[in-house]
């Protein structure tokens, strides 16, 4: 993808107890300036990866390289990596100014230089007026900004953030998401960001690495991740998703015919399936389901569905259908002129374009 790899995980494994691999065979390369998010459910090994990169855990196997240099044996304080912790970890016995001056002080910078940099870093996060406060005298969002400023004040090339917005309310979160991405891009920093909030991951990142069970399930830009999930886990984890179970009947011309349990046939794009007879789970986004089957191309398969529930949500309608034994099949339609509202119990025909329906592993 790029010429130079700035951060590189090369077949990294990690076990805490010698029995379970928390990280299994991690391979990851990041170019300079990229904003990469590690997204995954709790316990999937995201923090562990970050801690190995920062130097607080050692990889059990494999190599981690920073700017081409192997860092397994470099102590944390020599790695020059800025870090934002989930609990902020602002030093409680120091003022905001002292907190920010700390990394500069240990680098032996002069007082005047220090003060200048601290002031600029505080202004950068719009906290210029709070330099003399203690962390305990700040709100959560303000502490978050200070933690960010402290991680950036010594101008590291790589910044790690472990769920930095986890403790904030929704509105503040969205504002901070925007500010963090802006700062990261303005300063040209390479960022590894950990979250288990998928919206956060999709809106902020250049690329997202979806973690599960110590393995990267998919590493792709947000749009690709959403639209072209490579396996069932990613499809389920990112965004809303409808699934149907079945068996591949035939594959021809880039279209797989999938036979559902009740014998009906649907069209899908073969992603993880290769041969007829394989079990598969097809995945289709709620907004890609077509209820006006006249719009589908000639010869497309359709399914009968029964309306279970109709929810009016303002900009969209959300219809819950019962399809082929799945009572939780969601369809989202835009509140466009002429769009009809469904009644529960109503029987309709639905269909989709074959490329919108992905035949994935049966998991």
């Amino acid at each position, binding site marked *: 993808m790029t010429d130079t790899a700035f951060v590189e995980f090369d077949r990294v494994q990690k076990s805490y107890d010698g029995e379970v691999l928390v990280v299994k065979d991690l391979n990851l390369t990041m170019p300079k300036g990229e904003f990469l998010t590690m997204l995954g459910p709790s316990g999937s090994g995201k923090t562990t990866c970050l801690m190995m990169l920062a130097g607080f855990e050692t990889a059990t196997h494999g190599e981690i390289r920073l700017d081409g240099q192997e860092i397994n044996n470099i102590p944390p304080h020599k790695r020059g990596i800025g870090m934002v912790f989930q609990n902020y970890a602002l030093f409680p*016995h120091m003022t905001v100014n002292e907190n920010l001056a700390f990394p500069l002080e240990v680098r032996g910078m002069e007082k005047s230089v220090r003060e200048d940099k601290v002031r600029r870093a505080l202004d950068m996060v719009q906290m210029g007026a709070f330099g003399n406060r203690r962390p305990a005298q700040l709100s959560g969002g303000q502490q978050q900004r200070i933690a960010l400023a402290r991680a950036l004040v010594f101008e590291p090339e790589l910044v790690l953030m472990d769920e930095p917005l986890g403790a904030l309310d929704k509105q503040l979160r969205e504002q901070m998401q925007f500010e963090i991405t802006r700062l990261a891009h303005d300063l040209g920093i390479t960022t590894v960001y950990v979250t288990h909030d998928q919206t956060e991951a999709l809106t902020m990142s250049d690329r997202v690495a979806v973690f599960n069970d110590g393995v990267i399930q998919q590493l792709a830009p947000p749009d690709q991740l959403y639209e072209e999930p490579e396996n069932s886990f990613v499809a389920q984890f990112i965004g809303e998703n409808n699934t149907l179970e079945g068996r591949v009947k035939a594959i021809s011309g880039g279209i797989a015919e999938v036979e559902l349990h009740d014998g009906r046939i649907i069209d899908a794009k073969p992603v993880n399936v290769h041969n007829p007879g394989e079990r598969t789970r097809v995945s289709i986004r709620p907004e890609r389901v077509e209820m006006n089957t006249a719009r589908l191309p000639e010869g497309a398969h359709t399914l009968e569905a029964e309306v279970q529930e109709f929810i009016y949500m303002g900009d969209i309608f959300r219809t819950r259908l019962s399809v082929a034994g799945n009572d939780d099949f969601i369809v989202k339609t835009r509140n466009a002129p002429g769009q009809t509202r469904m009644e529960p119990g109503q029987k309709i025909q639905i269909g989709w374009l074959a490329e919108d329906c992905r035949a994935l592993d049966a998991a």
Partner: protein
Amino acid sequence: MADMTADVAQMRGSQEKLTTADGKPLKVALAAAQARSKRRAFYLVAPLLFFVLLTFVVPIGQMLHQSVYNPDFVYKTDVTTKETTPIMVNLRNWFDENPRGTEPEEAAYEALAKDLVVLREVKAAGIAGTRINYERSGSRSLFTKSARKAKKLEAPYKEALLDVDDEWADPTVWAAMRNASSAYTMNFYLAAIDKARAVDGSVEAVDEKRKLYVKLFMRTLMLSILITFLTFVLGYPIAHMLATLPLRYSNLLMILVLLPFWTSLLVRTTSWMVLLQSQGVVNDALVGTGLLADENRIQMMYNQIGTIIAMTHILLPFMVLPLYSVMRPINPSYVRAARSLGATSWTAFRRIYFPQTIPGIGAGALLVFILAVGYYITPALVGGADGQLISNLIAFHMTKSLNWSLAAALAGLLLAGILVLYWLYDLLIGIDNLKLG
């Protein structure tokens, strides 16, 4: 300008006078609303308050009172009937009429002779003599002997008394009697800092070989500081380890730390004696392994070393517990943050971890120091002559010499010293930072 400030003041004043809906001032309404719950809370703590008063405030007050009050030369209390009889009335009158420094003449001796008769009658010669003995040794027998013969004394009394014992001519006896003639006196405090009143009433140091208390106070102070320091040096790493280990290991180790509390202090001290004496385990081991020749066994008992070792061991938990309770909640991410910001592990410890443990150090040090200053049994058993602390002397005056007033004065000084320490702690660290566990 002045108008404006007045206006502002008025505005603020009117703002402050908030009222409830029916026009009562808000503060009054609030106080009324809270009074009931306050009263109830008071009833709940009343028993405790009473208990604390009875067991803490009253005894300490009494102790402080006793340190400045000794009526043994003023009246005699009958042990059974609790009746008090004034004694030395004539002599006290004479002291009142004649200023300090007056040469005692016939009138003084006459008063003394009459008072001695009373002493004999109410059987108070011993007690009164002991009171004088505190200030001038050898006076007790003077009193008992003279009181026995007092009835037979006849004018001129001066000669008669000098006949009984010519020590009566000694001005120090008269100075001591004058000092004792008022029940309230600061002389015990003077004695507690190795000072005494000279014949002319001025304060002077006692002679070199009777100086004892200041030296002991200093020794107590030094040893307590040393022991506090040792418990800190030994306890800090232990507490840190306990605080960083997973709970199931740290709980186990905590039991080891607390193990000393499970056995009696006396048993622990005795086991130190078994270990440390010259035929003890440590010396035997050293000799057995050939590290030490049999004839130069190390003397670790009945001196300061014994006191220091045993007390450090016994007081160690009092340092470890507050430290642990402060260290446990310190999130490891602070040190990690410091490291990621470029600090070496030493700098991260010194600048980030250590400052956050200071309240624990303060609490532990205060606790250990206060306990050490007042420690009694251990130094008494393993201390020998030069391992004795001030509390051993207080105990001596309470149980052996029965000079309770001096004991109280020594204890009063100790209390004052500790209060000063407490005040200093508050000044430097702040009492609200005190974390005891």
